[in-house]
């Protein structure tokens, strides 16, 4: 908060002053100083961590898969960049892909930074700048990312404003670097992409600790309530308000209004995507319809009386789709005005009247007003709902008679589902193939656009699956927010020593190659194997939409602690800050490393010692790539599902290139072989088998103790044998000494090592940073 001191005239024995205006940006109160020494990079600018980036990119160089052969960014173009050609501005394909990588990450970071701005400004307006940052009594390190990157310890909401200013500044600079005639080296583009990813992660934390502190969301307790999730969980007999997007402010105001009026129980408040998670964190009576893949399906059902859209992951056709089934729409964010008339300055009475009469879709950029308007309009509109609106299932299915089996729908499906065959089977009254498609469908609606016979294919898939939709009713453990410091104290040592085989985070969108079941099977396998499993966002929703062979959901099967054999739902997209924060806190709380402005050292620690891996099996949005890239800069590897290949870039190591796996031994400063651990920073896998084995491999770290490496190797070898039927080809690269070999596998492993000429190596105290060497010989 700025303070202004004005002196019109001062005439004293020390000085004569006239017309002095003094503005002080921030007043630090006495006794509020943070004693932790400031590290080398508080508020790093876009080149401050370039040295660290170059180190990791030398080991994990970018691997590009261009989605197009052209550059179309300026009026010299289109330029053909195929196979080594340069464009008119001099750029080649590698640099062009680096530019795409940076653009993707900057888009993601800008989304989350804007989101953080919106929520912090809303909360400051409502609760004041001095509202304390409080994310739980067992959470002393309240903001690990802010401490690490910004070098400040936020105590109140107002303290977050300077972090937001930093984010604005950096995002602008990075965006500028993408213009024609600016950055030109692929590695520098990637360094900037890593910076964008780091900013993205920082923005996540700003947004989530603000809302946890001010809105009373769960503060790290493991046993949060269970709430309902699924298209079949929504009570159609009540007025239904559907919130889509990521910003909880408008939806929470709906709940506030209904609670004030004592009518909450008689109105259904539900959400899709991350707003849904945050609504359930705000109120256990709110419901989750599902992940982003259910957006178009549910909106088309016409069940919602009012659709509130806020920001991010809002379909570009959602207003038209909602209007076509009689659902009223309130857009609420300046990020998604959707071409609607701005009624923000009208009274609630006027807006409700407009919504119910001649203006059924409006923009209202005031969350409290949205709360009142949405609640009142939904209650009034519900009786007129046309929901059984629209066509009956039989009428929709009758459209299949026009199918000529041209398979345009199949050829347009992003995940290659054979929709054409299924629609044609429905034409012959066999609905089973369409019902199978429903389970795997990502709900994009591209099939509708493709059909030359104008069959509403997505609606047809839904109509064939009405019974399944009614059954789609599960429970999810509400997002708990932060990982408690007490939990970090319990698991820090076993994670760093490798005795807990690793932390596996299932994150990201729902753009899966074959439905959510694959994701759940992977999470189940790792929880069974006593990894710490963490989840958030659409992945967390999709884990709930699966029952094992005993009919249990994973949230029923596993506890919600941050501990071995548990599954932790942290919440929405912005709650991804907490698993990332947890690995930082391990370095801080367990290893006593200073966080403050000390990014390189902490990343070096994480890369070499903490066996954490994220799996974004259904990565779709630019935000997912930004989050992943931010995790990469911190030393956390990420595996993407096959659709992730369309992000165009991976960071791949080469296990056989021994020189790349040299580390400094901090004990004596010698350069020693640390092994390909982790082998990749960002990898795209084709199948769940590949993903699971890769995750078990990527949790290995040079610092693992023999016992820890033994446990990690045991899981790796076992999964390899189970899923591939063989001993890993590279087992010799991960055995450093015979004590690393799992006891029960010695008879299998030792002959293989002998055959492959294995020799033992020293287990180093590994670092990539010269300044971390303790003593030199």
């Amino acid at each position, binding site marked *: 908060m700025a303070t202004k001191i004005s002196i019109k005239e001062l005439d004293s024995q020390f000085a004569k002053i006239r017309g002095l205006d003094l503005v002080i940006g921030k007043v630090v109160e006495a006794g509020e100083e943070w004693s932790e020494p400031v590290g080398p990079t508080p508020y790093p600018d876009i080149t401050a961590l370039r040295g660290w980036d170059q180190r990791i990119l030398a080991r994990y160089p970018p691997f590009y898969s261009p989605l197009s052969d*052209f550059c179309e960014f300026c009026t010299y173009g289109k330029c053909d960049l195929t196979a080594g050609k340069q464009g008119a501005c001099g750029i080649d394909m590698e640099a062009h892909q680096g530019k795409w990588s940076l653009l993707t990450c900057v888009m993601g970071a800008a989304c989350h930074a804007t989101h953080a701005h919106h929520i912090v400004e809303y909360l400051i307006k409502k609760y004041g700048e001095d509202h304390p940052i409080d994310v739980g009594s067992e959470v002393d390190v309240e903001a690990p990312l802010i401490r690490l990157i910004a070098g400040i310890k936020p105590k109140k909401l107002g303290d977050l404003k300077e972090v937001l200013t930093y984010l604005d500044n950096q995002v602008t600079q990075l965006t500028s670097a993408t213009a024609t005639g600016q950055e030109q080296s692929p590695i520098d583009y990637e360094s900037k992409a890593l910076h964008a990813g780091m900013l993205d992660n920082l923005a996540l934390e700003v947004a989530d600790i603000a809302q946890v502190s001010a809105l009373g969301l769960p503060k790290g307790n493991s046993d949060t309530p269970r709430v309902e999730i699924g298209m079949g969980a929504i009570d159609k007999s009540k007025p239904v308000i559907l919130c889509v997007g990521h910003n909880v402010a408008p939806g929470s105001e709906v709940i506030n209004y209904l609670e004030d009026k004592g009518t909450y129980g008689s109105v259904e408040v539900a959400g899709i995507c991350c707003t849904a998670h945050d609504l359930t964190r705000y109120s256990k009576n709110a419901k989750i319809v599902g992940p982003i893949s259910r957006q178009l399906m549910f909106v088309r059902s016409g069940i919602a009386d009012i659709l509130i859209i806020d920001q991010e992951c809002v379909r570009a056709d959602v207003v038209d789709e909602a209007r076509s089934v009689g659902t009223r729409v309130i857009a609420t964010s300046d990020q998604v005005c959707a071409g609607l008339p701005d009624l923000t300055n009208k009274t609630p009475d006027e807006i409700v009247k407009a919504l119910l009469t001649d203006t059924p879709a409006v923009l209202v950029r005031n969350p409290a007003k949205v709360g009142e308007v949405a609640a009142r309009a939904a209650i009034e509109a519900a009786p007129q709902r046309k929901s059984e609106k629209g066509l009956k299932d039989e009428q929709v299915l009758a459209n299949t008679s026009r199918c000529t089996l041209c398979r345009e729908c199949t050829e347009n499906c992003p995940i290659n589902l054979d929709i054409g065959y299924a629609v044609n089977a429905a034409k012959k009254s066999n609905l089973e193939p369409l019902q199978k498609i429903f389970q795997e469908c990502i709900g994009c609606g591209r099939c509708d656009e493709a059909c030359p016979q104008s069959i509403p294919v997505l609606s047809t898939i839904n109509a064939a699956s009405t019974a399944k939709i009614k059954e789609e009713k599960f429970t999810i453990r509400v997002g708990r927010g932060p990982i408690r410091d007490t939990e970090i104290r319990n698991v820090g040592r076993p994670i760093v020593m490798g005795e807990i085989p690793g932390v596996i985070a299932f994150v990201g969108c729902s753009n899966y190659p074959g439905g959510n079941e694959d994701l759940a099977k992977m999470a189940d396998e790792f929880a069974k194997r006593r990894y710490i499993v963490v989840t958030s966002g659409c992945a967390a929703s999709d884990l709930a939409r699966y029952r094992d062979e005993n009919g249990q959901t994973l949230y029923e099967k596993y506890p919600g602690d941050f501990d071995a054999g548990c599954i932790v739902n942290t919440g929405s997209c912005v709650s991804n800050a907490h698993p990332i924060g947890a690995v930082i806190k391990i370095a801080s709380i367990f290893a006593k490393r200073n966080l403050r402005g000390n990014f390189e050292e902490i990343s070096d620690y994480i890369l070499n010692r903490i066996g954490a891996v994220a799996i974004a099996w259904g990565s779709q949005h630019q935000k997912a790539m930004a989050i992943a890239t931010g995790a990469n800069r911190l030393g956390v590897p990420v595996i993407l599902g096959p659709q992730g290949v369309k992000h165009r870039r991976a960071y791949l190591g080469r296990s056989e290139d021994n020189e790349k796996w040299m580390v400094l031994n901090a004990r004596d400063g010698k350069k020693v072989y640390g092994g390909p651990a982790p082998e990749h920073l960002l990898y795209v896998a084709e199948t769940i088998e590949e993903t699971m084995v890769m995750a078990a491999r990527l949790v290995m770290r040079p610092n693992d103790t023999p016992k820890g490496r033994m446990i990690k190797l045991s899981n790796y070898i076992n999964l390899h044998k189970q899923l591939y*039927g063989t001993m890993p080809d590279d087992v010799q690269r991960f055995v450093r000494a015979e004590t690393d070999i799992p006891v029960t596998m010695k008879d299998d492993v030792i002959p293989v090592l002998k055959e492959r000429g294995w020799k033992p190596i020293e287990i180093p105290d590994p670092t990539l940073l010269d300044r971390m060497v303790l003593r030199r010989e």
Partner: protein
Amino acid sequence: MSAKITSYETAEIRGPKLAFNLTPENCGRMLMRSKRLLVVVGGDALKMKVADGVDVPEVAARLARSLGGTIVASPGVFKAFQSVSDVKLINMGLEDAVNRLKDESWKGFDGMGAYDMAVFIGGLYYFQSMMLSTLKHFAPNQKTISLDRFYHPNATFSLENLTPDKWKAGLDAMLQLLEAKK
């Protein structure tokens, strides 16, 4: 060769350099010239037996056997090759394999030198398309053939879009040609 080349995924429209569209028999003739063959089998291979009636691991094994090639199988389908013992087999993800193929200094899985032809079969369409794009742009000297049922514009040579029956029959004819030559 067909007069009109269309990609399988509608929006998979590429640039000026598109794969030559070959019949299976012509693919066979092209493959006969290979001295160092790598067969890259993708993660969708097993589904193709159910959907199209083509046993991709069997096709890959016959192909590698007839030309003395090496197979690199995506980990998700590697188990299907367990009964294949007379061909060099590598278990590796496509991204990892292509990362090596694009490196001109790479000496192959056996250290004997670069592969003069990489055959792709059994991949998820969009995934394989991107892997072929990597090679097209960053390893322009690496020749690739797609033997999948759908046209892959990013390969050097590709089959056209075929019906399952024509694909199966075409692969069979191609393999008989190669086996007869052997």
